[in-house]
Each structure stands twice: as C-alpha cells, then as structure tokens.
C-alpha cells in the first residue's frame, strides 16, 4: 500500500542529494483542488501529482513554475530545498 508522507517532509526521488520539499498537498487542500483537477490543469497524469506530493519525483523547472502559476504564488512558496516549517511552529 502507498504510504502517505507529509508534503513538507518529502524525500527527493533520487535520494537526499536531490531533496526538494514541496507544499503542493497543502495548497491543494487549502484551495479544494483535487489531484485530477490539478493534473488536468498542468497537463500531467494525476499519479504524477501524487508522486510530486509524496516527494518521489522532483519536477522540472517548467513544471515547478507551472504549479506555482496555477496556485498564483511565487515558486519558492511551493518548493524549497529546506523543509518547510510546520504550521504553528515559531518559524512559520
């Protein structure tokens, strides 16, 4: 069975050296967008959105920019090389 991993604690698809954290799941949930809707808007398979959220795939720059544009936020709001602070923590 697929093991869900929090979006801000994801592991990179190619190991720790390529670790890219993302907040796609958070943004998607916040805006009530389903995986299929997001996938259709981005022109990717819905499983790809799932793998992105689970941190098993790191997107190309083009796809990352497309995702940021879809949510109308700067790309660094969605992706980071460092883990995103947990909601409610002092850093957030």
């Amino acid at each position, binding site marked *: 069975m*697929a093991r869900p991993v929090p979006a801000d604690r994801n592991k990179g698809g190619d190991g720790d050296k390529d670790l890219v954290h993302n907040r796609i799941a958070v943004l998607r949930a916040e805006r009530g967008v389903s995986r299929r809707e997001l996938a259709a808007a981005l*022109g*990717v398979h819905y*499983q*790809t959105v799932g793998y992105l959220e689970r941190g098993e795939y790191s997107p190309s720059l083009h796809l990352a920019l497309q995702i940021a544009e879809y949510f109308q936020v700067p790309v660094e709001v969605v992706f980071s090389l460092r883990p995103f602070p947990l909601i409610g923590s002092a850093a957030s």
Partner: protein
Amino acid sequence: MTTPRTKREERLLTVLQAEVPSRYATQGGRRNLVRAGIACLALFYVSAVVCWELAPSDTAMYTTFACDGIGIVAGGILLGQMLVVSRGTTRLPDHLLDERQALEKLRAHSSAHRLTVILLFVAMFAIELGMSRGGDHSPSAAVLVTFVALLVTVVALPLLVITWRMPDPIPDEDDEL
C-alpha cells in the same frame, strides 16, 4: 503534455489510465508478475536448448511448439497486465506521456538496453559453443528458435524493467476533497 491526437489514442489512454488492479498495487504483487513473465521467457530458452541438443527430431519439434506456444499465450496475457500496471509508459508515444512518464520510459529503455547487450554476449558465446559441439551439422532450427527467444526478450525487457521498478501507485484521494 498528455494530449491525444486521435480517437484511438483517446481510447488507449482511457484504458491505460484506469486504476491499477489492487493485486498489483504493492511492490510484491508487481514483482511476482515480473517473475511470472521471466518464467514465460525462460520457456523460449528451454525450447532453444532442446533444439540445440535434439534437433532435428520430433521431440525437439514438439517441445518447441509446446514451450513457445505456452510462452506466447501466457506471456501475452502477462505482458498485457504489465502494460496496464505501467500505464503503457513504455509503449505510448511521447506526446501522450508527461515528463515523469517520459523519464521513466527513458530509464526503462536504458536499463533494458544494458541487459540486452549482456544477453547478446551470452547468446553469442552459447551459440558459438553449440556450433562447435555440433561440428559441421548445426541445426538451423536451433538458431531460429534462439533468435525467436532473443527477439521476444528484447521486446519484453522494457516492460519487465518498468514493472519491476515502478513505485506504488498513489491511492485516489479525490473523493476526500
């Protein structure tokens, strides 16, 4: 971009993008499918070995028909399952794949190519051995059957590789939103 250009491509995408059967949702299930596929491929090599040893003879002929027949039927069914499990990633044209799938396809073909090179070297030495043992009278049927085995393997390898390496599919959580 996954944009179908024809009705046929649209139908193909609908079939291949359906949910993966639950028995293949786990790595164990998928790898068992690959093992079964390898067993089917092995049948082609069994018939090749039998041909090298016994051809020309009725035993070699019946064994070849039986092994290759079972291999084609069972292997065809299994490869069909793998196609569904891998969502056609190795077979669909590039314009129907997104960037992740295109990368997976590339990796699968790359690994399959390496395995094919190794296999061809092994086959070359095996055929050389078979021909030297057979002297001047090497059975042509054996060469043909060996070639068929290699051909089937080369066709099936990318699908076997991608099914073996596939990560678990993400459960559809759309209903939760």
